[in-house]
Protein backbone atom coordinates (compact mmCIF):
# COMPACT_ATOMS: atom_id res chain seq x y z
CA UNK A 1 0.00 0.00 0.00
CA UNK A 2 2.23 2.81 -1.20
CA UNK A 3 -0.13 4.80 -3.41
CA UNK A 4 -0.03 8.38 -2.16
CA UNK A 5 -3.59 9.00 -3.28
CA UNK A 6 -4.94 5.85 -1.64
CA UNK A 7 -3.23 6.75 1.62
CA UNK A 8 -4.66 10.25 1.36
CA UNK A 9 -8.15 8.80 0.88
CA UNK A 10 -7.78 6.37 3.81
CA UNK A 11 -6.42 9.09 6.11
CA UNK A 12 -9.15 11.54 5.08
CA UNK A 13 -11.82 8.90 5.61
CA UNK A 14 -10.81 8.14 9.20
CA UNK A 15 -10.27 11.76 10.23
CA UNK A 16 -13.57 12.85 8.64
CA UNK A 17 -15.37 9.94 10.29
CA UNK A 18 -14.12 10.82 13.75
CA UNK A 19 -14.74 14.56 13.36
CA UNK A 20 -18.19 14.03 11.85
CA UNK A 21 -19.26 11.83 14.75
CA UNK A 22 -17.53 14.02 17.33
CA UNK A 23 -18.99 17.34 16.20
CA UNK A 24 -22.60 16.38 15.48
CA UNK A 25 -25.22 14.37 17.33
CA UNK A 26 -27.74 13.48 14.63
CA UNK A 27 -26.68 10.68 12.22
CA UNK A 28 -27.76 12.70 9.18
CA UNK A 29 -25.71 15.70 10.31
CA UNK A 30 -22.76 13.46 11.13
CA UNK A 31 -22.88 12.03 7.63
CA UNK A 32 -23.12 15.48 6.08
CA UNK A 33 -20.26 16.93 8.15
CA UNK A 34 -18.08 13.88 7.54
CA UNK A 35 -18.76 13.92 3.79
CA UNK A 36 -18.04 17.65 3.55
CA UNK A 37 -14.81 17.24 5.47
CA UNK A 38 -13.77 14.24 3.40
CA UNK A 39 -14.46 16.12 0.16
CA UNK A 40 -12.58 19.11 1.54
CA UNK A 41 -9.54 17.00 2.33
CA UNK A 42 -9.42 15.44 -1.14
CA UNK A 43 -10.15 18.67 -3.01
CA UNK A 44 -7.60 20.67 -1.00
CA UNK A 45 -4.91 18.03 -1.52
CA UNK A 46 -5.51 17.95 -5.28
CA UNK A 47 -5.57 21.76 -5.60
CA UNK A 48 -2.42 22.15 -3.46
CA UNK A 49 -0.75 19.36 -5.40
CA UNK A 50 -1.33 21.19 -8.68
CA UNK A 51 -0.30 24.55 -7.18
CA UNK A 52 3.09 23.26 -6.07
CA UNK A 53 3.57 21.18 -9.22
CA UNK A 54 5.70 23.85 -11.04
CA UNK A 55 8.10 24.25 -8.10
CA UNK A 56 11.30 22.23 -8.31
CA UNK A 57 12.22 19.99 -5.37
Amino acid at each position, binding site marked *: *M*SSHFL*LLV*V*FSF*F*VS*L*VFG*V*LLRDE*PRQQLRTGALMFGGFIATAIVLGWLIYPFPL
Partner: protein
Amino acid sequence: MTTKSTAAEPTRAAAEPGTLVLLCLVAWLVPGVGHMWMGRRQKGIVFLLAVPAMFVIGLLLHGRVFPFEFSEPLVGLAAVANLLAGAPWVLARLLDGGSGMVTAVTYEYGNCFLIVSGLLNFLVILDAYDVALGRK
Protein backbone atom coordinates in the same frame (compact mmCIF):
# COMPACT_ATOMS: atom_id res chain seq x y z
CA MET B 1 -44.13 9.48 44.00
CA THR B 2 -42.19 7.87 41.23
CA THR B 3 -38.88 9.22 40.02
CA LYS B 4 -38.35 9.64 36.34
CA SER B 5 -35.08 8.54 34.80
CA THR B 6 -33.60 11.37 32.74
CA ALA B 7 -30.52 11.70 30.58
CA ALA B 8 -29.07 14.20 33.06
CA GLU B 9 -28.81 11.64 35.88
CA PRO B 10 -25.79 9.70 34.66
CA THR B 11 -24.17 13.04 33.85
CA ARG B 12 -24.58 14.27 37.43
CA ALA B 13 -23.26 10.98 38.77
CA ALA B 14 -20.22 11.25 36.50
CA ALA B 15 -19.48 14.82 37.58
CA GLU B 16 -17.76 13.58 40.77
CA PRO B 17 -14.03 14.38 40.52
CA GLY B 18 -12.95 10.78 41.09
CA THR B 19 -15.36 9.51 38.50
CA LEU B 20 -14.20 12.14 36.02
CA VAL B 21 -10.57 11.05 36.43
CA LEU B 22 -11.58 7.41 36.01
CA LEU B 23 -13.66 8.32 32.96
CA CYS B 24 -10.71 10.10 31.34
CA LEU B 25 -8.36 7.21 32.12
CA VAL B 26 -10.77 4.63 30.70
CA ALA B 27 -11.48 6.85 27.67
CA TRP B 28 -7.73 7.13 27.10
CA LEU B 29 -7.02 3.43 27.53
CA VAL B 30 -9.83 2.19 25.29
CA PRO B 31 -10.89 4.82 22.74
CA GLY B 32 -14.64 5.38 22.72
CA VAL B 33 -15.40 3.64 26.00
CA GLY B 34 -15.84 7.00 27.72
CA HIS B 35 -18.72 7.77 25.36
CA MET B 36 -20.23 4.33 25.89
CA TRP B 37 -20.07 4.92 29.64
CA MET B 38 -21.97 8.17 29.13
CA GLY B 39 -24.63 6.32 27.15
CA ARG B 40 -23.48 7.43 23.71
CA ARG B 41 -22.93 3.96 22.37
CA GLN B 42 -23.05 4.77 18.66
CA LYS B 43 -20.32 7.41 18.97
CA GLY B 44 -18.27 5.14 21.21
CA ILE B 45 -18.33 2.27 18.73
CA VAL B 46 -17.18 4.53 15.91
CA PHE B 47 -14.24 5.81 18.01
CA LEU B 48 -13.45 2.30 19.21
CA LEU B 49 -13.09 1.17 15.61
CA ALA B 50 -11.56 4.23 13.97
CA VAL B 51 -8.80 5.27 16.39
CA PRO B 52 -7.15 1.84 16.83
CA ALA B 53 -7.58 1.18 13.09
CA MET B 54 -5.60 4.32 12.30
CA PHE B 55 -2.90 3.26 14.76
CA VAL B 56 -2.65 -0.23 13.24
CA ILE B 57 -2.49 1.20 9.72
CA GLY B 58 0.31 3.47 10.91
CA LEU B 59 2.23 0.45 12.18
CA LEU B 60 1.59 -1.44 8.93
CA LEU B 61 3.00 1.54 7.02
CA HIS B 62 6.26 1.14 9.00
CA GLY B 63 5.65 4.22 11.12
CA ARG B 64 7.56 4.76 14.33
CA VAL B 65 6.23 4.85 17.87
CA PHE B 66 8.50 7.62 19.09
CA PRO B 67 10.54 7.44 22.31
CA PHE B 68 10.30 10.15 24.97
CA GLU B 69 13.41 12.10 23.97
CA PHE B 70 12.76 15.72 24.77
CA SER B 71 16.28 16.71 23.76
CA GLU B 72 14.67 16.63 20.32
CA PRO B 73 11.39 18.50 20.89
CA LEU B 74 9.57 17.18 17.84
CA VAL B 75 10.40 13.58 18.78
CA GLY B 76 9.17 14.21 22.34
CA LEU B 77 5.95 15.80 21.12
CA ALA B 78 5.36 12.95 18.68
CA ALA B 79 5.88 10.51 21.58
CA VAL B 80 3.21 12.32 23.60
CA ALA B 81 0.84 12.20 20.63
CA ASN B 82 1.51 8.46 20.24
CA LEU B 83 0.90 7.90 23.95
CA LEU B 84 -2.55 9.50 23.67
CA ALA B 85 -3.75 6.60 21.50
CA GLY B 86 -4.15 4.49 24.66
CA ALA B 87 -4.22 0.69 24.53
CA PRO B 88 -2.82 0.43 20.97
CA TRP B 89 0.21 2.42 22.14
CA VAL B 90 0.59 0.24 25.26
CA LEU B 91 0.43 -2.93 23.15
CA ALA B 92 2.87 -1.55 20.58
CA ARG B 93 5.35 -0.72 23.35
CA LEU B 94 4.94 -4.10 25.06
CA LEU B 95 5.27 -6.06 21.83
CA ASP B 96 8.19 -4.00 20.50
CA GLY B 97 6.08 -2.81 17.58
CA GLY B 98 6.50 0.52 15.87
CA SER B 99 10.26 0.51 15.59
CA GLY B 100 9.77 2.26 12.26
CA MET B 101 11.62 1.76 9.01
CA VAL B 102 13.07 5.06 7.84
CA THR B 103 13.90 3.65 4.41
CA ALA B 104 10.29 2.61 3.74
CA VAL B 105 8.50 4.88 1.30
CA THR B 106 5.49 4.92 3.61
CA TYR B 107 7.46 5.81 6.78
CA GLU B 108 6.21 9.40 7.03
CA TYR B 109 2.65 8.36 6.22
CA GLY B 110 2.87 5.78 8.99
CA ASN B 111 4.05 8.42 11.44
CA CYS B 112 1.20 10.66 10.35
CA PHE B 113 -1.39 7.94 11.01
CA LEU B 114 0.16 7.07 14.40
CA ILE B 115 0.37 10.66 15.59
CA VAL B 116 -3.07 11.69 14.36
CA SER B 117 -4.75 8.64 15.91
CA GLY B 118 -3.39 9.74 19.30
CA LEU B 119 -4.45 13.34 18.80
CA LEU B 120 -7.94 12.28 17.71
CA ASN B 121 -8.23 10.14 20.82
CA PHE B 122 -7.30 13.19 22.88
CA LEU B 123 -10.23 15.07 21.32
CA VAL B 124 -12.46 12.07 22.02
CA ILE B 125 -11.37 12.09 25.70
CA LEU B 126 -12.10 15.82 25.97
CA ASP B 127 -15.51 15.29 24.38
CA ALA B 128 -16.33 12.49 26.85
CA TYR B 129 -15.25 14.82 29.68
CA ASP B 130 -17.55 17.56 28.39
CA VAL B 131 -20.43 15.09 28.13
CA ALA B 132 -19.80 13.96 31.72
CA LEU B 133 -19.91 17.58 32.90
CA GLY B 134 -23.18 18.11 31.06
CA ARG B 135 -21.72 20.68 28.67
CA LYS B 136 -22.86 18.69 25.62
